[in-house]
């Protein structure tokens, strides 16, 4: 355990980019989780300040068209963007891991069925699927979660399936089969712990995709609905006043990009640790 920590520390020391990602992710998560209890002001209090007021000492991110303080609204947006994506991705990860493991280990018909199912979901471009889902389910958080799942489930299935294929060919799996272990036991005891690393890496990528999809849907008015705020819906709100009150779009846009980037950077580092690529110099 201390070995892992030591390697992590060594990695971080020589790598400012990952360090930056980890720190900013930590800060954003802190704001997202503890935001409601921080003394930042009330996100829904109307006329707390001037309408469409520019950023000032009192209102760091300015105010919106109803005179609400924009900073607590952005913090609230961080919370719901993270939360919504995380819930969707967590559900998807569980389902995708189970399906991918089944496909990779059981093979044959199961593999065919799961692979085709993944192909079918994969064939819907995420936002286009979002339009269909919004048509069927109506705009809202449930739609957003569904769209994120449609978009990320095939990724989990494919990655877990291919890792499972590799692990299933190893000696310890064969030895367990020969010893008479049941299929379920092999999957739980021998496969699952060995695909978890890949699942964790995929989880971070899926989270960043989920955040992009959630905010895009909310930006189009198909995701989080007012008076709730997500970073996407704040951007939507701000884009109406883009030319006269650009701080709304800028603040929520920068925070959203930062959030996605820090998740990506941490994911990159996790993947590097799991599967280091060391090419050789050409001289």
């Amino acid at each position, binding site marked *: 355990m201390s*070995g892992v920590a*030591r*390697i992590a520390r*060594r990695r971080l020391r020589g790598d400012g980019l990952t360090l930056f990602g980890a720190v900013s992710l930590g800060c954003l998560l802190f704001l997202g989780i503890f935001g409601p209890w921080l003394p930042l002001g009330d996100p829904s209090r109307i006329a707390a300040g001037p309408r469409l007021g520019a950023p000032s000492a009192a209102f760091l991110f300015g105010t919106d068209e109803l005179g609400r303080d924009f900073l607590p609204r952005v913090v609230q947006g961080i919370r719901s963007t993270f939360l919504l994506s995380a819930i969707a991705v967590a559900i998807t990860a569980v389902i995708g891991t189970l399906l991918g493991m089944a496909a990779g280990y059981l093979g044959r018909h199961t593999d065919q069925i799961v692979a085709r199912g993944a192909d079918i979901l994969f064939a819907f471009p995420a936002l286009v699927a979002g339009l269909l889902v919004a048509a069927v389910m109506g705009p809202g958080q449930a739609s957003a979660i569904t769209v994120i799942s449609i978009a990320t489930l095939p990724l989990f299935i494919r990655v877990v399936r291919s890792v499972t294929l590799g692990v299933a060919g190893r000696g310890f799996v064969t030895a367990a089969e020969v010893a008479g272990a049941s299929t379920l036991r092999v999957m739980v005891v021998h496969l699952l712990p060995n695909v978890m690393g890949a699942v964790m890496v995929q989880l971070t990528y899926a989270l960043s995709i989920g955040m992009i999809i959630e905010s895009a849907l909310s930006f189009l008015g198909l995701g989080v609905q007012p008076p709730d705020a997500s970073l996407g819906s704040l951007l939507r709100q701000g884009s109406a006043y883009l030319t006269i009150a650009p701080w709304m779009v800028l603040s929520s846009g920068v925070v959203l990009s930062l959030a996605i980037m820090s998740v990506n950077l941490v994911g990159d580092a996790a993947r590097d640790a799991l599967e280091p690529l*060391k090419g*050789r*110099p050409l*001289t």
Partner: protein
Amino acid sequence: MTAMTAPLVDIADLVIEYDTGTRQVRAIDGAALQVFEDETLAIVGESGSGKTTLGMAAGRLLPPEARVLGGRIHVADVDVSDADDDALRRLRHDKLGFVFQNPTTALDPTMRIGRQVALAMGGRPAPEAIAELLSRAELNEPQRILRAFPHELSGGMAQRVVIAMAIARSPQLLIADEPTASLDASIREKVMATLGRLRAESGASLVILSHDLRMIARHADRVAVMYGGRIVELGAVGQVMQAPAHPYTRALLAAAAGNERPGERLRPIPGTPPILESRCEACAYAPRCAFRETRCETERPEPRAFAGREVVCHRAEAVIAADQSPRQEAR
């Protein structure tokens, strides 16, 4: 042996360490070796002994986490550790040929064999010349092989292609790292024979890195036994194999299946090979050695000439003496 001429390869006091990310591992701990013209030298050792590191260092082909900390590597009068990229490239291009362990991965999977061989030959060789080179490496149907992709060849054929590419420019030195380890047993001997014949025809020197003592006994002139990043015994194959002067050589021969008579029991070496983190100030083999005495654990043995070879051992005399009776059939 051609001891009078200047050696083709001259390695002295070489020290190489790897940075594994968590610690430094010393792969070569002061190795010295000379390779002369027109000879076949085998470097034997188990995994971790440093033989591959030594072989790759001769062409400065080490992975970037390796550091050369000291010593000298001269190959064909070029100071390999000091040469600039251009000089190094010329050396590799004109004077060195490498044969790797796994031939199918040593060939570009997306390029036809003919084109790869042509690139190795340089210039724009005629198809007949390429086919001729392949036939020299004893590949039948060179025309068909020219058009094939690497994955369409068997391991033995692919290794012959790799050998053909290695000799394409008539190098002075061939370095083969476990050239037959990935091949089926029934064709190993033939591929080795091809390699040996091509070497003899061209008058190049061949360095074979291998763990296979029996194969080496058949194909090498001299053998260098590596242990703990040093060459612990170096001499003519017949001498070393029949009357080893280093206890590790002796133990290795007794442990290898293939030399025993039916019913006879193999004698494994107790303990495990060392993983050095810095210069070893004793004999690295001492903890496993049946002949050790106190000074083996306190004093680093230096190479010395003994019984017609070079040996790194305080107790070589005792080892030779103990070996008067058995083990005459290393073939």
